[in-house]
């Protein structure tokens, strides 16, 4: 069997290759290469810090490896990966609250302050202000806004990722946009 290059494998072919057994490692490497960037940036927008993002990305793919064998192909692979990534990110932030004993301090405020000193933030002051505005949103609303505004994910796919209705997602996004606009217009 001639193995194709990464770009030519569809999600279905990757899964079949993985379940074949002989090419399990190779198939998983292809999957990681295909989705690592998307998954990374999705997580990075949630947890902000690069090192934290790196940890969550690895945890995400470890979990994906564990459950890929039983993956039901009624959902798209990328929505499935996004779902794992989102849950891992939320769990990470919960653990961060517990670990650093900040139950009464908004963890997002903590992330906003760390953004000021982040060596891996290359945006200008306006970009920084936008990120701080996004961090003021409630956790899930923030995730909805990022997926819609930056990634352009369809509401139908987002509904599968977040297990929420399309209507609720639209409403959440609208509210998020208005809040951010208000924050950006205030000096």
């Amino acid at each position, binding site marked *: 069997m001639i193995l194709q290059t990464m770009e030519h494998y569809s999600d279905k072919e990757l899964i079949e290759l993985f379940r074949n057994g002989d090419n399990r*490692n190779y198939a998983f*490497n292809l999957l*990681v290469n295909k989705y*690592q*960037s998307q998954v990374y940036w999705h997580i990075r927008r949630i947890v902000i810090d690069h090192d934290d993002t790196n940890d969550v990305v690895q945890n995400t793919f470890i979990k994906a490896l564990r459950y890929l064998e039983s993956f039901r192909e009624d959902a798209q692979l990328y929505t499935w990966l996004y779902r794992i990534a989102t849950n891992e990110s939320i769990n990470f932030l919960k653990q961060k609250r517990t670990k650093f004993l900040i139950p009464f301090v908004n963890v997002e405020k903590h992330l906003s302050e760390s953004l000021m000193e982040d060596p*891996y933030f290359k*945006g200008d002051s306006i970009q920084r202000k*936008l990120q701080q505005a996004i961090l003021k949103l409630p956790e899930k609303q923030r995730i909805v806004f990022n997926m819609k505004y930056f990634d352009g994910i369809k509401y139908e796919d987002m509904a599968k990722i977040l297990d929420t209705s399309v209507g609720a997602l639209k409403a959440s996004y609208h509210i998020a*946009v208005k809040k951010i606009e208000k924050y950006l217009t205030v000096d």
Partner: protein
Amino acid sequence: METNDNIENENLKDSAPKLFSMSKENPFDVPANYFENLSSEISEKCFHVYHKKHKATYIKILIPASITTMMVFIILFFFTENKTKTNTVKQYAYDENSTLEYLENLINNNELDESVLLSELGNNDSIKSGVQNRQTNINTVSFATNLGATMDSLNNNAISKDDIIQYLMENDESDDLLK
């Protein structure tokens, strides 16, 4: 054809002009060659964790199975040991009874001096008490009584065990007693 999402975006542009005028360029950065190395790092960690979990599962099964097997062997060992001891005791008891009977016959037939018997009994309290407790023969009962009296007199005399044994060896044609 305009999609619903595009229509929606157009509507939001009117309500959030500042937001939609901003560049959507990614403001975040990563260390050099991060994505080039990421896939190999992930694969290495993934399969290490995968094999570690399977190894852990294997050990979780192996340790209880080993402990259970050891316990079974220990129980079987002690069971077998007790059975052997019981057989030994029974055999010893059999030997004791037959020994007592033999010695009684010797004494009744005047083939064995009681004092010699007493000396040979030595510290063997079980045979001594067995002799004392035997009730099947009147001679045996009196024999036991005489034994006790003889034991006392023997202890008070200066006759040594070696002397008695020597006597026995010279006068006993059969070696049964010394066996």
